[in-house]
Every structure is written in C-alpha cells, then in structure tokens.
C-alpha cells in the first residue's frame, strides 16, 4: 500500500502546489520553508525519520506545522507517527490526507484531531482517476484556518 493514481501528486502538482500557494500568500504567516520527508519501507526507519522531522520543527521554533501526505495505508503509519512526534513537542499541527471510506487511519493518536480529508470521490475510494483525490485550494484554506485556530489556543497545555 502506498500512493495510488487518484491521490498521487504529480510533478506538475508540486510545481503549482495549492498548499504552498495559499500559505505563502497569507499576510499573517511567516512561511519558514517546505520540509520534504520520505516514507521508508521499514517501520524502524519510519519512526527514525518522523522523529527527525519533529526535531527540525522544534529547532526552527515554529508556531505551527501543516503536514500533507499523498499516500495512505502503510504511509499513514509514517504520517501518524510524525504528527505524534510534533504534537508531543507542544507544536500545533494540522494534517492533510486522503481518508474517505477506504483509507481510514490504521493508527491514530491524540494529536490527529484536525485532519483535512481531501477525498473528492463520491464513494470515498481510490478511483484510479489521476488527480481526483488531490489537495485543492479549498483544502489548503481549510487546513490553514484550522492551524490558525490551534495556534491561537497555543501548543503546550
């Protein structure tokens, strides 16, 4: 399990990424950068890179994190773990993922309370139609609005 045709982000998607577009245009946000983290095969490696990603967030002293994934199933193990590592550090985090009916999270944790599901198919499934279940401008705006709320409330309780 990994990245299917309808959820995968093509090179063209990255080139005109709606998430980057929305966040970088927002006058209230200082976008410090875009972090790329891979999805290794082995579970041990998944935890390793997830922790490193969270460590970066802590070191950069960011007020909030938006994390997006274009795969599901096995890729959700990485996704959940990285969110947990970030959340544990008291940093507000909002996720974006395809969930629908087919891709319910295999693992969950308390920090996954604000996930934007960018499923667009009627049945909530991987339709094998390229681009169908992709992040759009509305999803990005929703995610940023969630994050702003979370940041307002503060991270560490």
């Amino acid at each position, binding site marked *: 399990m990994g990245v299917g045709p309808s959820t*995968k982000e093509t090179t063209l998607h*990255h080139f005109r990424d709606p998430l980057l577009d929305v966040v970088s245009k927002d006058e209230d946000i200082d976008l410090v950068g875009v972090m790329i983290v*891979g999805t290794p095969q082995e579970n041990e490696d998944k935890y390793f890179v997830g922790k490193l990603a969270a460590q970066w967030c802590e070191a950069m002293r960011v007020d909030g994190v938006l994390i997006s994934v274009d795969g599901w199933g096995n890729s959700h193990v990485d996704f959940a773990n990285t969110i947990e590592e970030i959340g544990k550090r008291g940093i507000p985090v909002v996720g974006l993922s395809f969930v629908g009916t087919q891709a319910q999270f295999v693992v969950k944790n308390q920090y996954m309370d604000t996930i934007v599901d960018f499923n667009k198919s009627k049945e909530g499934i991987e339709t094998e139609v390229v681009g169908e279940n992709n992040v759009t401008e509305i999803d990005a705006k929703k995610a940023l609005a969630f994050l702003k709320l979370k940041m307002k409330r503060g991270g560490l309780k």
Partner: protein
Amino acid sequence: MEERVLRRLVIKSFHINDVKFSEKTFIDIQNRTLYLRKNCIEEFISNEEDIKQAKLSIIPKDGRDIFVNSILDFSPIATKVLGRLGEGITHVLTGVCGMLTAVDEEGVQVAEFGSSEGILSQQVYFNRAGTPKDDDIIIHVDITLKKGMGTVRKGPTACHRVFDKVIQEIRNVLKKVNGRLCDERHEFIDSIKPLKKKVVIIKQVAGQGAMYDTLFLPNEPGGFEGGRSIIDVGNVPIILSPNEFRDGALRAMH
C-alpha cells in the same frame, strides 16, 4: 519590524496554442506554436537497455478519447534562464504539458498501488493543480519497458530519464525566447516576516523503492537530471525554501 527580503524569483509564462512535429525543435512565439523534432525519442532511448521502445505523440485538446497506458506523471515545461532553482528567472510554457505513460512488453502496466490505464478522458480529473487543463495540448511519451522492468527501481527511473530528455529538448529553446514577449510575469519573494506566526509545511513523499521515489533539486524546474533521490539520502527530512519548491524542486517518481 519590517519584512526582510531574502530572494526573488520571477516566472514568465508564454502561451502556446499549437504543437507540431518538425525537422527541428523551435518556438514560433508570434504564432504561439511549438515545433518538436519528430524523431528525437529514438535518439534518447538508444542507450537505454531496459527500454524496448518509446513513442512520442501530440494529443490535441479534443483528442483525449484514446487509450493510454498507466500514467506515471504530468510535467510542466519550464526552464531556468537566470540563476539556480528558487531564484532568478524561469520561463514556462502554458497551454501545453508533458505526460508520461508506461507498460512492459508483456502488457504489465508500470504501476504499483492501482494503475490508471484506460481512456485518457476518463482516467484523468482535468483542471487540477497536477493535471492538464481542458484546453491544454499534451506532449505524450509512452514507453514500453522490457519484460519485468516495471517492478524494479531502474525501470521507472529510465522512463523518467527519457521523458525528461524530451522536455529538455523544449527547455533548450524556451531558454532563448525573449523574456519581454511573455504573456504573464509573476514575482515571488522569499522573505522573513517578523512577529508573524512561523509555519513550516511538511510534505511526506514516496521513498519506499520502485515506483515510490521522489527527486529533489534537479537542474531544471520539475526535471530529472541533477535531482537527488529521497531514497538515496535515507528519507531524512530536507528543507527547501518556498521559492525552491515553487520553482519545481520536486519530481514525483511514481
């Protein structure tokens, strides 16, 4: 405290209305026509031992009711004119984009987690960020790999390498187009905004193996050459500037 400007990226777009095969590759900017060297693909696959054959075609906007093999990627046609990725000037063609499809010689689709072969008009949700617009012309590269090569990492990698050479053929002439003739000019600034909420975007990308690779920081926007594989760097987190990302720092190697 004032905003501090770090770097500037200018993206100039040139709109294309027609793509035709020709003896050599060039852009007739007055007539908004791209001419593509007809047999270039033969040359590009000559050293590829895992590729059996490749076909280059032009799909007009009303010609999408055709069968295509599983879609590996859609690619922008963009090139650096000045500076490195994330700063300087980039030229991009609008009205046209690239599409890569692949299959192996036994008819096995090059795909892993579901495949997208079928009638093009039905297999793509058009007008998304990552797919062509309704009236885009598609430059289609279809590759037939040798038996079994679709499931090992070097098979799909070879497909992307050849596809990128076709795009590079266009990039080389796009670089030389007079920037003053662009249709649109967009300026993007990487800046530090003190006192604003600091946010980082994390993109979790594929890095498991064959059909699950991601390249970052290629020589050209959305390109293949010069790109580092996220698998090869151990999938560890990499930080890119917003402008690097916007300038095509990632290539999806699905």
